[in-house]
């Protein structure tokens, strides 16, 4: 396969040099009827190529896609995305057809006359109003969903977690029994107090610092993001969640996990994708991949940006409570 490409490229280079020598003895410089004919047909051929590529990508690259949303809020994202994508697809197929088919159909001939057709208010009204109406639907649904995701004020008994970023590492802090995070600032960073928690704050005593995030299934989680050096972005693709971490301010994002990690691992899309990945890994002689939720950095943050990640585990409430109770509080760790 690769060799074919190299050969193809070599052929292209060869042809190009042949053409360069031809430049010295060309005849016509302006398109003739024959050129119009050939190029018009090539446009039709290109339309076929484009359709083939679109269909190939839609069918065979589907397995690459992220599995269905693992958060309850993300369900509407998926639905809105599907609606938008179908719409885009239809318009794309139609517009490319018109463009390239017209390029073929009306390819110039000496004896032909173009139609002097400069304006039509009716047509223009149609293609102003149609997109406008369609957009009303997209904007309406989009704004409703945006509000639905971003409005965290009505969450009942949410789990509060601070996600803390620095070059090139994630850390996290649970709010503890009082479900309130202690104050944090870079001025408090010292020794093992790597997140800069103000230990004089009462709320900070029961906070728990961890290097792996565990979430209970079905309970709303509100993340508070901080950064100590440059911009980072906390990207949790499986939950349709992302928010920048900005030094000097606290940003937030919330969602409700819908599936546990174990449930995701047996979900059909994940099984299929994992099989594809493991086939590739086996060929390279690497250990098999097991699905895990992941938090990765998605804002350029320095040389090792590409390695900045943290594992997220979603489990049943019971297992979560057991795990969190085993984590030491800050008061125990930082004396």
């Amino acid at each position: 396969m690769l060799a074919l490409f190299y050969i193809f490229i070599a052929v292209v280079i060869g042809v190009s040099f042949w053409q360069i020598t031809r430049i010295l003895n060309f005849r016509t410089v302006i398109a003739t009827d024959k050129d119009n004919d050939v190029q018009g047909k090539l446009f039709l051929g290109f339309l076929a190529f484009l359709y083939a590529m679109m269909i190939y990508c839609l069918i065979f690259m589907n397995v690459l896609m992220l599995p269905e949303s693992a958060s309850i809020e993300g369900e509407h994202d998926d639905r809105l995305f599907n609606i938008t994508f179908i719409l885009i697809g239809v318009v794309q197929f139609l517009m490319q057809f018109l463009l390239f088919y017209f390029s073929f159909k009306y390819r110039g001939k000496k004896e032909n006359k173009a139609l002097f057709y400069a304006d039509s208010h009716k047509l223009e009204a149609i293609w102003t109003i149609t997109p406008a109406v369609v957009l009303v639907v997209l904007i309406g649904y989009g704004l409703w969903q945006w509000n639905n995701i971003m409005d965290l004020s009505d969450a009942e008994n949410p789990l509060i977690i601070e996600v803390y970023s620095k070059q090139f590492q994630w850390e996290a802090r649970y709010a503890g029994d009082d479900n309130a995070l202690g104050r944090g600032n870079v001025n408090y960073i010292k020794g093992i107090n790597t997140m800069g928690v103000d230990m004089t704050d009462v709320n900070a005593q029961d906070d728990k610092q961890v290097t792996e995030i565990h979430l209970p299934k079905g309970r709303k989680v509100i993340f508070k993001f901080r950064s100590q050096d440059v911009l980072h972005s906390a990207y949790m693709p499986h939950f349709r969640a992302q928010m920048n971490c900005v030094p000097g301010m606290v940003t937030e994002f919330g969602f409700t996990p819908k599936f546990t990690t174990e449930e995701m691992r047996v979900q059909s899309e994940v099984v299929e994708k994992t099989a594809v990945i493991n086939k590739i890994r086996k060929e390279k002689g690497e250990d098999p991949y097991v699905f895990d939720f992941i938090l990765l950095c998605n804002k350029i943050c320095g040389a090792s940006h590409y390695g900045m990640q943290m594992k997220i585990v979603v489990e049943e409430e019971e297992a979560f409570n057991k795990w969190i109770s085993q984590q030491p509080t800050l008061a125990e760790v930082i004396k």
Partner: protein
Amino acid sequence: MSEHHHKETFVTKYIFSQDHKMISKQFLITGIFMGVIGVFMSMLFRLQIAWPEKSFTIIEAFLGPHQNDGIMNPDMYLALVTIHGTIMVFFVLTAGLSGTFSNLLIPLQIGARDMASGFLNMISYWLFFISSIVMVVSLFVEAGPASAGWTIYPPLSALPQAIPGSGLGMTLWLVSMAIFIASSLIGSLNYIVTIFNLRTKGMKMTRMPLTMWAFFITAIIGVVSFPVLLSAALLLIFDRSFGTSFFLSDIFISGEVLHYQGGSPVLFEHLFWFLGHPEVYIVLLPALGITSEIIATNSRKPIFGYRAMIGSIMAIAFLSTIVWGHHMFISGMNPFLGSVFTFTTLLIAIPSAVKAFNYVTTLWKGNLQMNPAMLFSIGLVSTFVTGGLTGLVLGDSALDINVHDTYFVVAHFHLVMGVSAILGMLAGIYHWFPKMYGKMMNKTLGYWHFWLTLISAYGVFFPMHFIGLAGLPRRYYTNTNFPMFDDVADVNVVITLFAILGGVAQLLFLANFFISIYRGKQAEQNPWRSNTLEWTTPVEHIHGNWPGKIPEVHRWAYDYSKVDDNGDYIHGEDFVLQTVPLKDGEDPS
């Protein structure tokens, strides 16, 4: 102006020229030079993406101290991405495209002897030249060039401790951009004044070709938005060098707390994107203007919906200044702002759709002359549609959350403003080459160039949408740390191969361009049988453009294939120069 010929030395003719035609060629050649650098950089980092940490002799050859045994360093990868973006957006598609064609066409198409101020025009070019030199020099500083992404978000761009490129490299980047902005502003003001004041008799605003409208509106958005980037750059220079805290606060790095208090990186993002988004249209509108002209000429038909086209250019320009926040949905700004920007952003789809439909309708029942310029223009409409449609996903804040900063974004903006604008620029070069150099470019090479470029553009950027939807973040040196992305590795190889093909195809263009300057066939006065004024000037360039009086204009630019009641061409041919008076009983269009 001057009836007698000035005595010209080599210096006044080729170097410090005040003639708009020569200045446009200077912009073009400099733009092409920068373009070669920018495209070549993309080849290098595509090698790294497709075959991570594999040794290549070409990397060893070009990256000097920033590689080990032919494997590029992660810092250098980011630097290449950064400089590729900067060069392509500003130096190629802003100065190279607008600078070239605004300078060449504005006086010629409105019927003026030259720009309003030839001297300022010359200054504009030389500032651009200096900024290009500074940018190229920044590639050679010890710690490497700027590498915080072309958007240079602080604190990364402000702190050399965070990334080595934020030292001297970043300083030079900022200096270069400040000079560049000055150049762009001087140029834009000149374009606006010229179009307002120097139109020939009869050239009403509503008779101007759409290229003129596009350049005119582009210059206005440039004047409105570029100064804001200048202020952002200056404030960033203050933060970097004089200890102010406009964009920085509460930073702990390299084991110490820095003194910055109370600034906000989000403020920088607002300032940056207040230019950054209009910039997309500064790049795109001239390409669309060029395309409008070329499609009408080569379809032998009037552009469909002339007034609607002007209206949509204006609507796009207006909207472009109030949508910048869609780059910042997840920046931490108030979610309510996100709602407002979603609304304004998606509105842009309407004028864009009008333009796309009007192009297609112009082709309908035309008599299409498939000159290379026409092919590139049709290609532009295709990529503009493909790339524009995915804007519906990215402009919708709720959907943007999950595709933000992934390869989906990279695919979207490359198609809609990168590839489209490049195709428009190439179309313009093929179309107006006879006007610039008095020679014709080779047609066959043009065809090869077009097809290889279009196929590789789609080959690179179409599959890229899907690896973005797989959640793959952009600007990753390698994806090997994430087993979940192992299945996109093959796609990346294919993309890189297409990228190399596309890059190699540009050699055809370079050869055609430079050989044709010297050995191309002599051009006729009006080779494409076009209506506009520039084709009434002599093939040989003269100061003042027209040997005698400036011609008077009697009609709009699009009287192609105008027939009388018997179906015969009113003026005997399928085109009518704007200088031809109306016949008795002829309807003005």
